[in-house]
């Protein structure tokens, strides 16, 4: 399920409520991976007092649905939930939740990360940060989520 929320949401409550509503896979899921992105009170070395999250209504939902469908084709998943905040956001508030349920942990980790990277690269959201002096600035681009992962030598994470 995809949800775009203009209101503060509690990611852990969302996970529990969704899981409890999905009685048809109760007892079938062994592995749940949840990622929560939270607004920090600093970015690029500066204090940040808030942000506004703009999106492209319609296209955002469409892209997120495609992203989840792709993950469902690539990995064995029972279900997935994506919730993303829009509008005015304050530090320490959750921005994004990606939760996936699978039988096995490898699928849960891989699918959760794939959805999150695709969301960062393709879902039409834009952040405008508010600085303590009242200035506003658009965030220019997202960083690579695999930046510190050993791309060429996977031995660390592949054991």
């Amino acid at each position, binding site marked *: 399920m995809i949800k775009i929320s203009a209101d503060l949401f509690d990611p852990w409550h969302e996970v529990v409520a969704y899981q409890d509503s999905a009685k048809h896979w109760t007892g079938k899921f062994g592995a749940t991976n949840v990622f929560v*992105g939270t607004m920090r009170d600093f970015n690029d070395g500066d204090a940040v007092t808030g942000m506004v*999250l*703009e*999106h*492209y209504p*319609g*296209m955002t939902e*469409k*892209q997120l649905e495609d992203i989840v469908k792709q993950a469902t084709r690539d990995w064995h998943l029972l279900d997935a939930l994506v919730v*993303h905040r829009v509008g005015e956001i304050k530090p320490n508030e959750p*921005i*994004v939740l990606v939760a996936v349920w699978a039988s096995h942990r490898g699928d849960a980790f891989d699918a959760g990360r794939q959805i*999150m990277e695709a*969301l*960062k*690269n*393709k*879902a*039409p*959201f*834009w*952040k*405008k940060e508010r600085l303590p002096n009242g200035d506003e600035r*658009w*965030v*220019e*681009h*997202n960083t690579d989520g695999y930046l510190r992962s050993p791309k060429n030598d996977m031995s660390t994470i592949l054991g």
Partner: protein
Amino acid sequence: MSVKVRYFASLKDSVGRSDDMVDVNGAVTVAEIWAMANANRLMPDNILAAVNMEYVDIEHSVQNGDEVAFFPPVTGG
């Protein structure tokens, strides 16, 4: 034919509008739609374009009634 053009985020600020209606005759690409709507402004290098809410490259051809959108790199999540 008539094409709706939309701008988002920092591009909306720099263009100074959130949308345009462009009337065109015959075949036209996304890049040409930009040029018609923004006669005095080159398309920024890192711009992303969508037609009917799907990503396209700027040589994609536009049909009557399409919604064309231009926006900067996305920064959600």
